[in-house]
């Protein structure tokens, strides 16, 4: 491919991990890699992206709105003027999906989403995705002219610096006016490692029985210097915030150790954690699907196993 665009996002004060993963993958497909970015610290973000082989960063001012229409209209304006990439890569993220969807309507081009890989093969661009909780791998080819539009699950590619260059920063117009106003941004304070970067993740599910029992999960995560996570069932039930959710609709985690307590292993959950190196499951139902992928399975009551485990760990 001659040229690939990536949608760059910020995580803290640097490019987010998914952004660097996309840059690395785009670089490996050959040709020029350019990024679109709407956010703070553009110079610093561009400098780091340069270390990953991104040669140009287009910056977009959203005018205090959400990214979708502004960034998509800026991309579409470039394409209209003849600056056309072969592929535009996005993260499967909150803002990434908004921009991808808006751009697809502007260009009247289809999207392929939640991909884990992309290749150029037989003169086609093909994307790979997992379905049925990761049990089946489906590859789909675009059957339309470029630019092809796709987004990718976090952690699908390793982020590796390379092809270092100085990324040129170019401010571009966003022809579409903002119709949504961001009034205030709230950052939730979190102690301990971030869920999708933690080496150890301890997740709880419906088997805990009630919201107050989630404290055991937090204590165990803390004792192991890991991050607490959750199944969709208890997020839906309002026991913990959405940001704790591991699974298809939540975070993808690939820690060294994943402990699933009181989680049966719905496909929706498994797709978010089956890439973990080591999986420990505690569940009272011996038929629970989670035991099918666990390296160590304890058929037992979480209300007995977890307190005993906490006590054993505290004595160390």
């Amino acid at each position, binding site marked *: 491919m001659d040229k690939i665009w990536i949608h760059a996002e910020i*995580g803290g004060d640097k490019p987010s991990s998914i952004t660097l993963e996309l840059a690395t993958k785009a670089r490996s497909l050959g040709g020029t890699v350019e990024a679109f970015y709407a956010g703070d610290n553009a110079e610093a973000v561009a400098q780091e992206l340069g270390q990953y082989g991104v040669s140009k960063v287009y910056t977009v001012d959203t005018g205090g709105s*959400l990214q*979708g*229409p502004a960034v*998509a209209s800026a991309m579409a304006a470039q394409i209209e003027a003849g600056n056309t990439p072969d592929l535009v890569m996005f993260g499967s993220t*909150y803002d990434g999906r*908004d921009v991808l*969807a*808006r751009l*697809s*309507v502007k260009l*009247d*081009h*289809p*999207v392929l*989403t*939640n991909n884990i890989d992309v290749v150029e093969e037989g003169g*086609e661009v093909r994307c790979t995705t*997992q*379905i049925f909780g*990761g*049990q*089946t*791998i*489906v*590859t*789909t080819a675009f059957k*339309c002219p470029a630019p092809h539009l796709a987004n990718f699950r976090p952690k699908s590619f390793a982020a590796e610096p390379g092809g270092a260059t100085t990324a040129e920063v170019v401010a571009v117009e966003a022809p579409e006016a903002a*119709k*949504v106003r*961001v*009034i*205030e*941004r*709230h*950052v*939730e304070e979190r102690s301990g490692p971030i869920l999708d970067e933690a080496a150890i993740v301890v997740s709880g599910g419906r088997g805990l029985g009630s919201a107050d029992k989630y404290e055991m999960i937090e204590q165990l995560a803390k004792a*192991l210097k890991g991050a607490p996570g959750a199944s969709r069932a208890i*997020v839906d*039930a*309002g026991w913990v915030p*959405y940001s704790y959710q591991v699974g*298809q*609709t939540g975070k993808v985690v690939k820690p*060294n150790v994943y402990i699933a307590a009181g989680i049966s292993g*719905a496909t*929706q959950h498994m797709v978010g954690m*089956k890439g973990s190196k*080591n999986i420990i499951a505690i569940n009272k139902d*011996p038929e629970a699907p989670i*035991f*099918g*992928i666990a*390296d*160590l*399975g*304890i058929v037992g009551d979480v209300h*007995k*196993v977890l307190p005993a*485990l906490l006590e054993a760990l505290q004595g160390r």
Partner: protein
Amino acid sequence: MNVVVCVKQIPDPATPGELDPSTNFLKRDGKLILDESDAYGVEMALQLADKAGGGEVTLVSMAPNSEMSGLRTALAMGAAKAVLVSDPALAGSDALGTAKVLAAAIKRVEGADLIIAATEASDGYTGTVPEQVAALLDLPSITFAKKIEVADGKVKIERQTEAGYDEVEADLPALVTVTAGVVEPRYPSFKGIMAAKSKPVDEVTVADLGIDAGQVGIAGARQEITSVTPAEEREAGEVIEDDGTGHEKIVAFLEKLKVI
């Protein structure tokens, strides 16, 4: 306040999904149910209409056949009526084709102040359809709402972000996607279930909506599945019954990995 809710009828997630080997489409021949993700949007819409002191909740859905069982569930929860786009031409539609159909169907609903959808469906989970619908209707959109308030012609949202949440607002009419957990969906009452049977469902075809059949279905999707393969199986390890020493097994396992 009139609210439109986009809903999807999907195969029961409790039964394992299957692809039709001849088309590679998801098999949808069994009974379809209301996607659980949509129950939150329906409930939110009912509560907002109630709070505004009037107005109707209208469902919008599409299906290649005249399937309605999932729609009846949402009508039983309290929605007033539904528009169902039902046409064999829709089989194999992708996200953009789906969005074109839903956008055209929403236009049939008069005086819609707010359009609600789930962030993504539980079966296909492309996750772009609502924002595409908003783009096609040229409406402001706010995705991933975990809290919604409507007042003075504006919708105010707490939107989930990586770092926490943003307070975002837009003028009505607007489109909002809701995360599961935004409200607790009600169970349909017996009275509701009986009433749902006679609620109006406006069944229309792609042609009724003025959409060219080439824009939807397989033709409109402009993509082709080139391979379907089973993923590498992860092997199950040791599974033991807890006899009071289960925690010791976990400690030993963690020690072996040198994480404690």
